[in-house]
């Protein structure tokens, strides 16, 4: 079966609805949100952040940082201890049912009845939002087709592969056409091909107007998809900015250079920290303000040509580690 996810046009309707909202209203506003669990653990220490309409927003943080607690509060699975949450300007303390209508949630763990058929799971979810059966079936078909699992509609969920189950949860979350889609670790346990097609699908629905918030451990995923990012650690927001701005803050980057010719053991380049990994590989640390051209010039003078180059680690990953370790 093809893993290509198709857009049969339903998503376009989402954007029409989204665009009919006043653009100044944020999709999500969180103010001084706190959570203390019954065992005394303080998961959130008064965090505040905002997600604009149409944004693709990443919520990053190490395990236990408070990401899932935040998402749990937004979708009512966790009771907050303090603070305010507004979804498209609807305060969850004032009218949670109205706020819930705007949200679609794709949790990290599979949370459906494994004995039910895929189609029934999606149609039932539509029913919980009050969609009449005929409309529910029509939408279920469209979303299951878009996500490439229509052929498996009569298969009990337990018989689906991990990737199909993930797609089923995305179809289920979209059935009421939410304006804000929240995905908790959507790439967990998903193969590369499936991940790439999922990214393309999410990009497409975001371009068409759906605001997306995702948590992920794959920083490459956040860098590839998201425009804004909040990093949460020990229940505090330690960074909240655009990805571009965050990457600009990088004070240094480490590059791996694959060389065509043998690299001398005692190689040195003025102003740069250089390490010879093996006879054809160099590791070069470039500080902010330095230029790689200088490195290439010196290597050229030595008669060494560079065939390829890559970052030693994902750039965002380096930044993430710096921020999280700095806050620890």
């Amino acid at each position, binding site marked *: 079966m093809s893993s290509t996810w198709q857009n049969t046009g339903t998503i376009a309707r989402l954007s029409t609805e989204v665009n009919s909202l006043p653009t100044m209203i944020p999709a999500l506003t969180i103010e001084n949100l706190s959570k203390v669990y019954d065992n005394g653990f303080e998961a959130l220490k008064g965090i505040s952040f905002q997600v604009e309409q149409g944004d693709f927003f990443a919520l990053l943080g190490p395990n236990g940082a408070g990401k899932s607690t935040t998402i749990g509060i937004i979708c009512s*699975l966790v009771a907050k201890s303090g603070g305010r949450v507004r979804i498209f300007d609807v305060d969850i303390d004032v009218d949670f049912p109205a706020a819930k209508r705007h949200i679609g949630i794709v949790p990290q*763990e599979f949370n459906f009845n494994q004995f039910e058929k895929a189609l029934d799971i999606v149609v039932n979810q539509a029913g919980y939002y*009050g969609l009449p059966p005929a409309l529910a079936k029509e939408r279920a078909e469209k979303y299951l087709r878009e996500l490439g699992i229509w052929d498996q509609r009569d298969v009990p969920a337990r018989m689906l592969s991990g990737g199909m189950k993930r797609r089923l949860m995305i179809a289920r979350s979209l059935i009421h056409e939410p304006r804000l889609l929240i995905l908790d670790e959507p790439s967990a346990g998903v193969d590369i091909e499936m991940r790439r097609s999922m990214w393309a699908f999410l990009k497409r629905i975001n371009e068409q107007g759906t605001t997306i918030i995702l948590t992920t451990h794959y920083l490459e995923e956040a860098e590839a998809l998201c425009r804004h990012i909040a990093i949460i650690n020990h229940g505090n927001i330690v960074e909240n900015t655009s990805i571009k701005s965050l990457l600009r803050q990088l004070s240094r980057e480490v590059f791996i250079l694959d060389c065509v010719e043998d690299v001398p053991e005692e190689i040195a380049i003025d102003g740069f920290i250089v390490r010879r990994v093996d006879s054809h590989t160099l590791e070069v640390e470039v500080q902010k303000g330095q230029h790689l051209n200088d490195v290439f010039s010196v290597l050229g003078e030595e008669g060494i040509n560079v065939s390829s180059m890559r970052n030693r680690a994902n750039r965002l990953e380096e930044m993430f580690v710096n921020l999280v370790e700095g806050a620890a």
Partner: protein
Amino acid sequence: MSLSEQWVAFMTILRKEIKRYLRIWTQTLLPSAITMSLYFVIFGSLIGSRIGEMGGFTYMEFVVPGLIMMAIVTNSYANVVSSFFGSKFSHAVEELLVSPVSNVVILMGYVVGGVSRGLLVAVVVTLVSLFFTHLQIHSYLIVITVVLMTSTLFSLAGFINAVYANSFDDISIVPTFVLTPLIYLGGVFYSMDLLPEFWANVSKLNPLVYVVNAFRYGVLGVSDVSLPIAFGMIIFFTALAFGFSMHLLNSGKRLRQ
């Protein structure tokens, strides 16, 4: 949500519940038919024929209403406790909790699902009983009212059990150690007149006494307790269970963190 949307949500939960117990009918419907057939044969025919009359009826006639009610009670309870706990265990209940459907609709969806199974089993067991005795209904209105009220009460009780349960063991403890003794001591097999005064008074704390006797009155026209008191007690226990179930849902206890 508008009323029509709440109705759609209610029907969705109810349809899902009915589909569930029909899909596994060998676990949900068949056992009652077999168990009750055995009760009819052993207690009704074999032993009952030696007991003689009870309450002015043959023992078989006397015991049949209680056995039908026993099937209704156990099936209504079992349906909701296993279905709702299963949803909790698999986290599928989150599908409902994240949606805008109101708590009362969630509760009524599960409860009416339990009632529908209770009714279906009642029909099956009644048909089985016709192989062993001739049933003459004294009041169809009372029979139907008592069946509906009883299955509602025990569906609510099953819901409360499911909310508190942490494991599959917890959903069998109450039926085994509480519900079954209450049923057996609730006058299914004997008339309260046989009990010493003290134990007859103690029995009045048992909701099953009112349920069984009200139903028996509907079928045979005789009861050990007064009908208005029986109805009053069933309504009281149902209101109590409904109020507590709503409290559990509204507070999110054991459902939300």
